[in-house]
């Protein structure tokens, strides 16, 4: 985590990092404010409030890492990995059903349009993280 930074100009991974950090902070806020129900998650074997805490911590850590700490290649790999896991989670969730993960936390109550399209928005974001990560990864491997 404490690797020296070689890419100073903010690029796509950094933008993705900011969004990831925001999503993570939203989850942590939702968990601390008790907005997440303790219903069992259909995909991850733990209650939703713990999922929010667990995922919030990972996202904050990854977001900070991508923005400030990780080398571009590692940041890209991290984003691709987290994007792929989000896509898998969404896919498994569509198969298994159940109460959805409160990925956008309280943001849906502020903007009802987000609630209407929450599933589609989260799937899009998952694909977006994965593609940004994968593309940056390919680009980094091409630099000698």
């Amino acid at each position, binding site marked *: 985590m404490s690797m020296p930074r070689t890419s100073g*100009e903010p690029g796509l991974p950094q933008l993705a990092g900011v969004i990831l950090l925001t999503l993570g902070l939203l989850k942590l806020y939702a968990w601390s404010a008790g907005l997440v129900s303790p219903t069992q998650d259909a995909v991850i074997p733990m209650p939703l409030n713990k999922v929010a805490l667990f995922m919030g911590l990972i996202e904050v850590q990854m977001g900070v890492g991508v923005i400030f700490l990780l080398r571009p290649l590692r940041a890209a790999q991290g984003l691709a990995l987290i994007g792929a896991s989000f896509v898998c989670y969404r896919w498994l969730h569509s198969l298994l059903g159940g109460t959805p993960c409160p990925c956008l936390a309280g943001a849906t109550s502020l903007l009802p349009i987000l609630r209407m399209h929450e599933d589609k928005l989260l799937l899009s974001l998952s694909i977006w993280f994965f593609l940004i990560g994968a593309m940056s990864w390919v680009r980094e491997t091409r630099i*000698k």
Partner: protein
Amino acid sequence: MKLFTQHWLLCSLLIPLVLGITFVWSPAWAAVATGATEGAELSKALLLSERPAAVGDLEINQPWLYTMMVSALFKTFGTSAGIARLFTLISAATMLVALGWMLHHVVGGLRLLLVGIFCFSVKGMLMLSMSAQPGLPAISFAILATAIIYKPVHPPGWKRLLLSGVLLACATQITFMALTVLPAFVVFVFRQWEWRSACKYLRFWGIGLVMATLIIMVLSPNVNFRHLLNSPTGPIENQPQFHLNTLFFNPGLMLAAGFGIFQLAKRKYPAPLLFASAWLATVTILAWVWGYWPESEMAQFYIPMAMLGTAGFAAAFSSVLSVFQAGPVSAQPLQNSVRQIDTHNELNMLAAVTIFAFWVGFTVPDFVAELKQLHRLPAVKDNELCLSIKENAKSTKWCYTRFAEYAFANHVLIPPELIGLTQLDGKYGQTNTSLLKMVKKNQPEQLLLAANIELRDQEWKTWTTNHYILVDQDGEKELWVSRSLHPQNIQPSNDILRKLGL
């Protein structure tokens, strides 16, 4: 692969081929209905082909050309909704080829597929391309009229200009909504040639337009200006509407179209993109001013958006391709330990990824749902209500229904003055009582009524139960047959439930 990248026509034909396969694979050919206003359109064409003398009383809200064309198809190939749907599909395919011709100077090769993908993946467009409604054929004619004079190097000859005028006349005689293309067409012409030449060319084009319009009007069974001028510009009860905010449900396409508009200046305002921008601006302003847009005309938004989106996404995607196609590159010189990043390239990559992600996340699930819905469409032969109408079809002269697709499925005619009225519910001020008066005048042998509309009215209920017998029902739809035909009665489900003590 090289073959496709070099020949725009092959690329333009791929999506129509997929649409054709979908049409053959799905039950769209024999379905009861694939569109909301389809039944009325088909009933009008059936009336024109079987009783041309009766169409004088037909209340219409659009010109006759579409009805005449579908009627001619019925006479040639037999009366079938599938024929009319195939006509729309062929129109959509022709339109995609015309768009391919217009766009191949802006984006080349396999990227031309994007216009079809963007356009027909949007919710409702797939069904519209297989529905007997005039919206898509009209747009197809209008785009053909534009594409035919698109020749970036040479000025078009007078024959081409005349033909363009004729095609646009056909478009406007199919539905007046095609007139929305006109401002974009003018922009397109003046962008291609300097204004003196453009004015000269427009003279030939105008001759074609006026001549063809006059010929079509002369050939039309009647030109009832009262009905045409009374055509509604406001919302029609029970008719599906298209709301402008629906566009935001396809953020991938919105972003792509936005990026396409961004490309306009960069590419020195190419005529096809300027045409798409002007068309999109026209329909947006009209929909906003009217506060109403029929759902069957939603293609007027999505086609220009798909044109712009194709240019936008193709430009953005080229940056993504450059990452994969380029060989290993040396890191740029480090200045104060900071690597320089190409902002333009980053922006393009961000646009490409965002457009793709949002298209997959928002549009693809809707497209898959629509495919499933298309596959589940009930066929005429499997629909009990259709079979019940068929039992007495031979002894039926008229059938009154607002569900015109059920009458058409059995080739049963609806009285001419009642086809348009039910389609334009409430717009001409007719009430249940005045409607009943017209129905009584025609003495239809069969009535397919809506329990929550006609039968809610006591006068309707009394008259119906006195002269007709209920023979079938499906949800809110109730089929009543004249007592003179001695049909077999069915007990209303309420009575059965009451007898069972439920």
